[in-house]
């Protein structure tokens, strides 16, 4: 089947740092792919380039057949992006926020309603949706934002650190939702996380990134076997040692 995302030698040079160095990987439909690596590894930079927010200094990425360089507007129609540690408009109500965001993706009122209903059923916030977002807890905001990111069934949902800063129960709920949407609705996800233990439970395949280099990609089980490791953290440790990165 055709890939949802093909990343080809994507690089980003900031004034001083080379934050991404020829990063390449791909994602198939219905797959959950996670970029894992410590803080400052270049995950957000890579993700922002794919989300058309940053212009790559080299390389390209093809999202649902469109180049992020040549056709960024088309790419934006195929993706949704949930920034790392994102907030929402505090003075809006949850439902107001969903309406506003739905209005950015479609101008058809019927479709807008469908999106909102779907988001409601996914986030499970119920009556609290009528309250101002300013009164929400972190976990509630994350659930609201996640439901918004998947309400229009994008070809690729890009979630930067979707569980960071959440307590265990909320994190589990978010992970379950992502897994269910991929399994039942064949949605594709690009995630990132600096928590390598946790990501094992969600992702089908992972890419290990450090200092801007994508070192290896592969299915979780396969990587553990290849590096003779108990978990992804150990895999990371060995990969980094092998590549003499740190």
């Amino acid at each position, binding site marked *: 089947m055709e890939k949802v995302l093909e990343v080809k030698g994507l690089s980003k040079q900031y004034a001083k740092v080379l934050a991404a160095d020829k990063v390449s990987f791909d994602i198939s439909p219905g797959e959950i792919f996670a970029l894992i690596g410590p803080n400052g590894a270049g995950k957000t930079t890579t993700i922002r380039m794919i*989300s058309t927010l940053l212009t790559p200094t080299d390389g390209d990425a093809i999202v649902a057949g469109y180049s992020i360089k040549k056709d960024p507007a088309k790419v934006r129609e195929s993706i949704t*992006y949930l920034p790392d540690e994102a907030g929402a*408009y505090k003075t*809006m109500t949850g439902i107001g926020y969903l309406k506003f965001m739905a209005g*950015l*993706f479609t101008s058809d009122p019927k479709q807008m309603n469908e999106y909102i209903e779907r988001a409601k059923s996914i986030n499970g916030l119920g009556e609290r949706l009528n309250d101002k977002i300013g009164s929400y807890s972190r976990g509630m905001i994350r659930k609201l934002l996640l439901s918004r990111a998947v309400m229009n069934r994008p070809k690729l949902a890009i979630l930067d650190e979707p569980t960071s800063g959440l307590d265990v129960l909320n994190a589990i709920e978010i992970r379950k939702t992502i897994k269910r949407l991929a399994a039942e609705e064949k949605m594709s996800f690009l995630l990132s996380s600096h928590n390598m233990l946790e990501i094992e439970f969600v992702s089908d395949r992972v890419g290990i990134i450090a200092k801007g280099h994508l070192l290896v990609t592969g299915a979780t089980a396969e990587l553990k076997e290849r590096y003779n490791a108990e978990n992804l953290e150990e895999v990371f440790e060995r990969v980094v040692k092998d590549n003499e990165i740190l």
Partner: protein
Amino acid sequence: MKFFNLLQKELKELINAQMIMGFVLVMVLFFVLSSVMTDTISEAVKQEYNITISDQDDTEFTRNMLSELEKDGNHIRRIDTEGDDYAAFLKDNDLKGLVIIPKGFTESIESSDKPEIISIISMKSASMMSNLNTENSGTIEVLRKYISDSYSENLGISDDDIEFMEKPVTITEKTVVNDRWADVSASSVTGRIMLQSAILPIIIFILIIMTSQMLVNAIATEKIDKTLETLLSAPVSRTAIIGAKMLAAAIVAMLQAVVYTVGFSTLMAKSMFSVSGDMMSNMETMSDEVTNAMSEATGSLMSVSEGMTRLGLSLSIADYLLVGVQLFLTILICLSVSIMLGALVNDSKSSQTIMLPLMMAAMIPYFISLFADVNSMPMALRVLIYAIPFTHTFTAMPNLMFGHNGVFWFGIIYQLLFFLVCMFFALKLFNSDKILTVSLNFGQKSKLRKNQKQYTDE
């Protein structure tokens, strides 16, 4: 449709409790300011009539003098004082000014010595308004007139002779503006213009600051909450995103402009009616009456507003429209600059700091327009001040009034160009990834460094 969605959201964000609070605060400020002005001025006017005199001499002559004054319609309050503890006199009687006729006054007159009158004024501040209260000159002039009358009687000199001696020449004041002239004194015209156009600069100043702060905050909050990234990755054009933000801020600003102008001019009109009706005529008749009473030159003076129309100093509807256009351009400049400034902010603290340049750009021409005439400054300074685009907004009304049309139109064109250039860069900023990567951190720990710190901690 999507643009409408964006605009609606921006408007809802801007019209919040905080904005309404600011709105109310400004109105209260206006109200207090104008009623303070009204009060001090009308009090001053009242005070002029209320003469407080302490007659330490207390002779037949002084008693006669005072009762004559009362017959002329002056309200005289008499108090008893003794010695020379002047501060205590004012304090004990709760006075701002006092005239003392000291012991030996009548004697001096009878022996044809020059008699003495003591005028005491309490000075509480150097402010113009507060010193209006404490003018004793009216009282003294009236006394002087009475005394010279009695001298002339004593010495057998006619009133005409005295008048001629005191004022050997009659001064008729005329004011010239460009090629027109009128029978009004320049000082009374200045007074009227100051009162009239005190409104506009304050409104312009508040508008510039509030509009900019509004938009800078709107963008800064979106950056900090990362809702901006979400917006920028959504399938809407970035021009629509900025457009909606600017339009919403412009609508709110214009709304404020209209409310402030209407509100403030009603307040001013009210105080003008009660004060200027009184004050303008009084200030004039008072000082003129008092100083010119003997010269009889008053008759030829025309009213100030009549004079101003004659001088071409009143603005036509077209002029007001032009001032409105300029105000709109000013707001557009604020918006385009604020968009760029907002993009530089990465935390809530710097959103205050970043306002500083804009604040200065509004403050400098505001104060200069209050205290000086830019057009008569040395060339280099004038160029420098007119390079600040907001200066043209503050000088628009006086420039139109005094027929400096060239400077006015230059200002409009300059502001238009300035806006277009700023807008060009603002759009460029939003259409590149600079909007997310530029930042000023003002020496604070940047987010990036914090990230790296965490990295080494783990």
